[in-house]
Structures are given as C-alpha cells and as structure tokens.
C-alpha cells in the first residue's frame, strides 16, 4: 500500500535521503518540513497518512493535540532520535501509539519500521474502537432500561410495551433506540 507521508526533520540532508528511500519503496512524501513553523498548515493541506518526525523538532505537542481531537481520523507518528537513548525508546514505545526509533533512520531500516508502525497502529486503533463500542453498548443499555422504567411507571406499560414504543419511535424517526431513550430522559428532566 502506498502511504502519503509527511517528514519533519531539522536536518535537510537526512530528510532528503529519507524521502528518496520512502519514494523507492512506493510511498509518497507529501511534505518535508524543517522547523515546524508551518506544521499546522501543511497538516491541513496535505492530510498525510503518517508523520515521521525528529524527536528534537518542535511540533510534537501540535500533533498530539490533533490526535486528541480527531479521534475519528488518527494518524500514526514515527518519532526518531539521533541520541542513543535505547532504554528511553524501548520504554516509551508503549501502547502502539507512536513508534520511536533510535539513531536516525537509515535507508535499509526505514521500510520495516514504516510497516511495523502502520501495523501496530492499526491493531491499537482496532482495540480502542472495540473498547469504545463495548462502553457505548453498556451505556446504551442503561439508558434504555431507565427509559423503559419511566414509561412503565408513568404510563402503566409492561416492559415489553415500553420497549416496543421506544423501538417504534426510533424506527419512525430514523434514530437509534438509545437516542430515543436519551431524548425521553432529557424531556423528563431525568438526566443530570
């Protein structure tokens, strides 16, 4: 698969070599940034699939916040350092969010690193999604139960009747049952 990659590196010679290596491997370097002064604009314009960044280049906090707000479209980041901080890197490669690489990125190392980072990233995102879905389902069930309780109590419905009413309303308005239940609770002033 061909990836659109953004390079952030203060060392132009090094980033030129990296760009060539990535290009040879079939990827496209959509932007090469030196100081990070234009990181925001470039990110917006280029929409890269992956960012490869020198750890000592400013702009990491910018990327981190973008990941926080764009939970739907996170991008993997590879951070590399020319300092031989093996322990640091080993420890900091956590949860598969960012891949750290020590001692620069040489031409022969770049491809496996990009592939591994992409794979780990996908794995991690899948896990996160799964967790989120489980949590949502749990929350939804609670809300629906609460709404059923209200209908049973206030309208004297049976549990099944209450559920059928929620379901019918949801279908006729093209909404999720949990959202109908939430609306009902809001109308009753029963959410926080």
């Amino acid at each position, binding site marked *: 698969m061909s990836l659109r990659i953004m390079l952030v590196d203060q060392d132009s010679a090094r980033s030129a070599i990296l760009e060539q290596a990535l290009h040879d491997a079939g990827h496209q370097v959509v932007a090469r940034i030196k100081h*990070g*002064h234009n990181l*925001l*604009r470039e990110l917006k314009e280029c929409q890269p699939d992956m960012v490869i960044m020198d*750890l*000592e*280049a*400013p*702009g*990491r*906090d*910018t990327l*981190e*916040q*973008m*990941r*926080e*707000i764009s939970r739907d479209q996170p991008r993997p980041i590879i951070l590399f350092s020319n300092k031989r*901080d093996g*322990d*640091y*890197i080993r*420890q*900091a490669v*956590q*949860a598969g*969010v*960012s891949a750290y690489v020590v001692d620069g990125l040489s031409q022969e190392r770049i491809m496996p690193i990009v592939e591994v980072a992409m794979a780990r990233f996908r794995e991690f995102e899948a896990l996160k999604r799964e967790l989120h879905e489980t949590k949502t389902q749990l929350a939804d069930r609670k809300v629906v139960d609460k709404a059923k309780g209200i209908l049973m109590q206030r309208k004297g419905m049976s549990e099944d009747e209450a559920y059928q009413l929620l379901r019918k309303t949801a279908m006729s308005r093209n909404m999720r049952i949990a959202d109908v239940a939430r609306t009902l609770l809001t109308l009753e002033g029963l*959410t*926080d």
Partner: protein
Amino acid sequence: MTSVPQWLRPGVHAAGGEGLEKTQIDLGFIPLTDCAPLVIAYEKGFFRKHGLEARLSREVSWANIRDKVFAGLLDGGHMLAPMPIATTLGLGELKKPTIAALSLDLNGNAITVSLDLYRRMAELDPAAAAERSMSVRALKKVIDTGKHAGREPLCFATVFPFSPHNYMLRYWLAAGGIDPDRDVRLVVIPPPHMVKYLSSGEIDGYCVGEPWNAQAVATGVGRTLITDYEIWNNKPEKVLGVNREWAEQHPNTHRAMLMALLEAAQWIDQPENRIEVADILAREEYVNAPADVVKMSMVGSFRYQVDAAPAPLPDFNVFFRYAATFPWRSHAVWFITQMYRWGQLRDPVDMRKLAEEVYRPDLYREAAQALGLPFPTADYKTEGQHGEPWTLREATEPMILGTDRFLDGGTFDALRPVDYLERFELHNRQVSLDELAKVNP
C-alpha cells in the same frame, strides 16, 4: 527523647550529597520565564548547596518532557500543572503514576489576539474591546457575525491539551458565551512559535506564558486582551513533576531537589533580584528572547498594547509569596473538574483520591520543615472567595495568601466537585453527574 528523622540530622545536605540516593540529576525545561526556579537553583548554586549536581536540558515539547521523565531519561521536569494528573490517568499517550510535590509558580499567562481581530472587535463593540474584563463580549460579537456570514471559525492556540492555558482560555470563552468546541477552532503550537503563527494569520489568537505575549505586543503583531491573573487570581501554573516510582526510590534526592527549588523560588521573589533573574533567563541557553521583553512581566508590569504604557500587575508572576510553591490538592481537583467539563476525562473517578495520589503536600512539608519555612497544614482551600490578600491560619504560622477571585464571580469548593461541574452551562462533558456523584461521595 524523640528520634530525629534521618533527613533532619545536620550534615546530611550540607556535606555535599551524603544520604542522597543519587547526586547527579537531569531536569528538563521549556523556554518560558517560569522555568526560573530551575534556572536560578542551578545558576545561584542552590542545587549544589543541597548536594546535587544538576544538568538542565532545554526541551522542545511538553510531550518530550513527559516521555523523558516517564522513561527515566530525566529525573524530573518543568511540567504544566495538569500534566502529572493526565499522565497518571494515561490521558495523553503515556500512562504512569506521576507526582507533583512542588508548585513552581502562579499566573504568568495571557490571551493575545492579532491586531486584525482586535480591530474587528473594536468596530463591533468598542466599549467591551477596550475593557479587559469585558473583551470577550466583543469577541463573541465577531464570532456571531462571522457565523452569520458563513466565515471559517476563528482559530486559537494553546500549548498542550492538558494545560492551564487550555482550561483558562476555555473558561474565559465559555464565560462570554462562546463554546470552545463549536464556535472556535483550538490548536496547539509550541510557545516560541506563537508570535510567528499570529503574524502569518494562521491563528487569530492564543493563550501562552511569557515572554510570548510581550513579544507579540512589542513587535506590533498582537494585542493582549486579558491575563490569566484576571481570569482567576493566583491560578496554579507549573509544577515540578517526577515519576512516583522514582520518588519512592530517591526520597532524599527528591527532598534535596525540593529544598533547592524552594530556596530558588524565595530568591526570585525578592524584588531586588528580579532584574538579574530576567537577565539570566533571557540568555540563549534558556529562554533566548530579548532581555527587555523578558523583563516586562518579571518586574511586575504588563503591556497590553504597543502604544500604551505598561500597566502595573505585581502579581503576574508569583514564585514564592502567597504559599505559591505549595501543591494544593484543591488545585488538582479543579484541573480534574475541567478535564471532565471539556470531555477529556471520560471515566468516572474519585477526584479527591486522584488529587491525593498526584499532588503531594506531605513531601513538600518535609522539605519546607527542613529549611525552617512555614507551610500550610491544610491540603485544600476554597477558591473565588478572596478579593483581598488574606491570612491562612491552617499553617505552621499564619501565612498571607493572595486573592483568588474568578472573573465570573464563581467559587470552587474542592470537597464538592460534582456540584461545581453542575453549574457550568457550557460544557462537553462525557460522563453524567450521576455517575460522578457515585464515586465522589
């Protein structure tokens, strides 16, 4: 006879490192004027006095400081006050119990907008635009007009998702009826790049620490609307952050660090030393900015616009007085409430318990006591109730504390954080108050 704790015995510190688990320490900082306690402890020999050989490492991002402290590459760092909480919770990219036993300063940030945006504000509401506490009203008019005309939302920058800057900017916007998640776009930019982004028009405003507001004003790029001091008087700002595990393994080294930094903070707050502090900070290896720009806020004045005289703001940078170094657990709880308010924290937790894990006044007191300094005996204080400096009696001796008003007149009681959250009409909360109340009895 009562036994004297090991660390109180004479000679332990003065003898140059005896009893210290390690004497060489690496500390990270970001180029901002409030790295001063670290820089002064180093430059003025306070670390050496307590047996420590410190090395200061200038870092380019808060994430780098967090990661390097996480991995033990740094022993500790200049951290945004909410960072140890976020790292303990794993809200950023890493999760590891992190503690703060010392606050490095109060206040020190401001909100600055481009001259172009200021002009639009002044056109629509000249009275509000000219008045610091009302300026947000003029901003809202610009935003409403822009929405109506279908313009792109204004873009504001802060320095990190888990920062006092983010919470202060949001607090201020929301107090003016502006929804920070819908009515504007928020981004993160490293402090030294702020002025450049503002002048290129890529952002319309920002909330940042000094000297990056003074710089925008001095170069005619921006106008400061309000300081954080005017949003919340004597608001907590930075802390010394270390791994909990590291602190447990190096209790004496940690205490020596706290003692050195306490003495440095005390030295910085002597008015006669402030100019020297500013000169040292301005140097290339630290903040790397013009000395007169650094001096502006450090000597207790603030310049909001280029064509006006600096206004006195003596409490803009508070390093020691008002118990500024004390890690109030109530401050930690306040930050946690904001993490809920803005949807960063999505699981219900016991806020006080979390504050007690992360903010460590117990360790602070050991260091202050060893230096013979007074300290608060309470861990919590209310906020928003003092419009004048006041006397704290829950202390080893009465201590003068600063004002603590919020711009909207709000009050905060850390013992009732869920009630506090209930009061905010504008929020992006992802956890219901019922769920929060269950774990916050």
